[in-house]
């Protein structure tokens, strides 16, 4: 094979394999570390199901840490992939998974749920999901017909709806005085602590098909970057691809947001970071975002659990704290290489 043209499959497998190792490593750390200190050996015994494993530790690992680590991986994967799709569709580097107003809508829904005193699951999850779906419906109604294909009108409608929702959030927050305020703030900052294995199972079942669908459309996303006319003359059904990507992405992002609140920055920084590392081909970036985003989120959640002396902090606090400097570092380095 001519070395000038790197074979896509090889690159796809190399990148996926590396990031899979990273994800598995992060997950192992996530399972091993926590408020109860145990040696790596004990953790390994529990994980591998050895007979002399500590049953208390096994319970902690499988009942508490495992769902949480899987949830973090799913959320990281979804938000990174969501950011990647919106950056491609809107041809805007500042786009992220929440750009269509999903964050605002679901936050309003969640806060209403919390104020109504609903339980975290299924109550608040349900109102959050309803909130994000109604903003999406609104966006599709506003930009119905041809304008859905115009990136700027879609972007602006999303920004406006998010701004409107923010004011409602502030209104609701400023009317709240009791302990519910703490719940609201935790939700807004993104929190993975309430994971439960059946919940995580439902989430996985609903978003994995979206991942597959998006991967099948990843070559079309490459072509869309050349502009609509070019893509069309290369056999892409623009309307079908655009609408499918918008719906699949919005659905999976809403589904994760209603489980764990607003975790910012992952959807913005991970796609850029991976693009700097592996180039702009979406057939590589889609699996890379799933695995890399998952690994990043597991790692951030681990820090959110381990860093505070008592209790824990929302994972959303960590994501930007690490992500922003890391991204600036990589950006400077790639600028220098030009």
């Amino acid at each position, binding site marked *: *094979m*001519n070395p*000038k*043209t*790197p*074979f*896509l*499959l090889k690159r*796809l497998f190399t990148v996926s394999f590396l990031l899979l190792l990273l994800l598995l490593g992060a997950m192992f750390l996530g399972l091993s570390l926590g408020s109860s200190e145990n040696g790596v050996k004990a953790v390994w015994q529990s994980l591998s199901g050895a007979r002399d494993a500590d049953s208390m530790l096994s319970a902690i690992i499988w009942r508490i840490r495992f769902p949480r680590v899987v949830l973090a991986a799913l959320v990281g994967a979804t938000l990174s992939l969501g950011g990647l799709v919106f950056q491609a569709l809107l*041809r805007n580097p500042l786009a992220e998974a929440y750009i269509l107003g999903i964050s605002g809508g679901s936050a309003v829904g969640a806060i209403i749920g919390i104020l109504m005193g609903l339980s975290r699951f299924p109550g608040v999850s349900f109102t959050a999901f309803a909130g994000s779906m109604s903003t999406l419906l609104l966006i599709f109604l506003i930009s119905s017909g041809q304008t859905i294909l115009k990136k700027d009108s879609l972007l602006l409608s999303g920004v406006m709806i998010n701004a409107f929702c923010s004011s409602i959030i502030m209104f609701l927050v400023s009317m709240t005085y009791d302990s519910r305020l703490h719940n609201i703030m935790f939700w807004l900052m993104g929190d993975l602590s309430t994971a439960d294995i059946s919940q995580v199972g439902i989430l996985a079942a609903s978003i994995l098909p979206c991942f597959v669908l998006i*991967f*099948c459309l*990843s*070559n*079309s996303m*490459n*072509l869309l*970057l*050349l*502009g609509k*006319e*070019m893509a*069309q*003359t*290369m*056999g*892409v*059904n623009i309307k079908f691809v655009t609408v499918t990507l918008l719906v699949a992405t919005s659905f999976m992002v809403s589904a994760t947001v209603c489980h764990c609140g607003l975790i910012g920055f992952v959807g913005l920084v991970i796609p850029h970071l991976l*693009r700097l590392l592996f*180039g*702009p*081909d979406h*057939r590589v970036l889609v699996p890379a975002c799933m695995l890399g985003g998952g690994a990043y989120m597991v790692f951030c959640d681990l820090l959110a659990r381990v860093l505070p002396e008592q209790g824990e902090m929302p994972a959303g606090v960590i994501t930007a704290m690490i992500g922003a400097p890391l991204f600036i570092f990589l950006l400077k380095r790639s600028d220098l290489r*030009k």
Partner: protein
Amino acid sequence: MSTAIDIKNLSYSYGNGPVLKDISFSIQKGDFFIIIGPNGSGKTTLLKTISGIIKPQRGQLEILGQSIRSYTRKVLAKTIAFVPQMVQVDFPFTVSELVLMGRSPYLGLLGLEREKDIKIAEHAMAFTGVEHLARRRLDQLSGGERQRVFIARAICQDSEIILLDEPTASLDLAHQVRVMDLMERLKKEKSVTVIMVSHDVNLAAMYGDRLLLINKGKIVSMGRPDEVLTFQALEEAYGCMLLVDESPIGKFPRITLVPQKFSNSSPFKN
């Protein structure tokens, strides 16, 4: 010779009035066919209609003997490739990645290339002389190099017909000739039908087998360069004073612009 494109009574209008008015003509297979005309004459709309980007509102358009409506998107992409005017590339694809995109209509559900596709892409890059740039990023190339990369992508699409929208605009002289020579070779060696919109009437005169002059959405004339490029027709269409004589390098017309400061001196005084 059989017909590549057959257009009957084609009309098209945007919101503010008709752009193409009842146009009929056909293009033979294997021709180097160049569409010329002033700004706003409907050239680009005509090219976009043939490419399938916009649907004909009225009239018929047949490609290789079949109505364009009977083509699926992928089959149309395998039949006609389109090279637009300068494309703005927002994301840093490399040259080989971009050329390989031309294989898209041939890929399966997952959209992954096989070795055969890479061979075809490498051949296309060699044909347009950009293989040494394969790993370079598009935003690091000059305008002429980038245009040849986009032509390589079109060749990679392996279609019988290639459409180009002003491929020489904003290129320097050497790159203009290089791009036009490339299309000539493509026509001769791969018997591709080349259909081009051009602003440069001299290049059209030198390279075109047949020319189509349109103005205000209507056909002015169609035929060999010496039949179409008469000074009466050109002055009428472009609305400026021109001198047409025979080129010193061959049997085709040469068009010279006449600046206003010379327009009163002989031999232009009638």
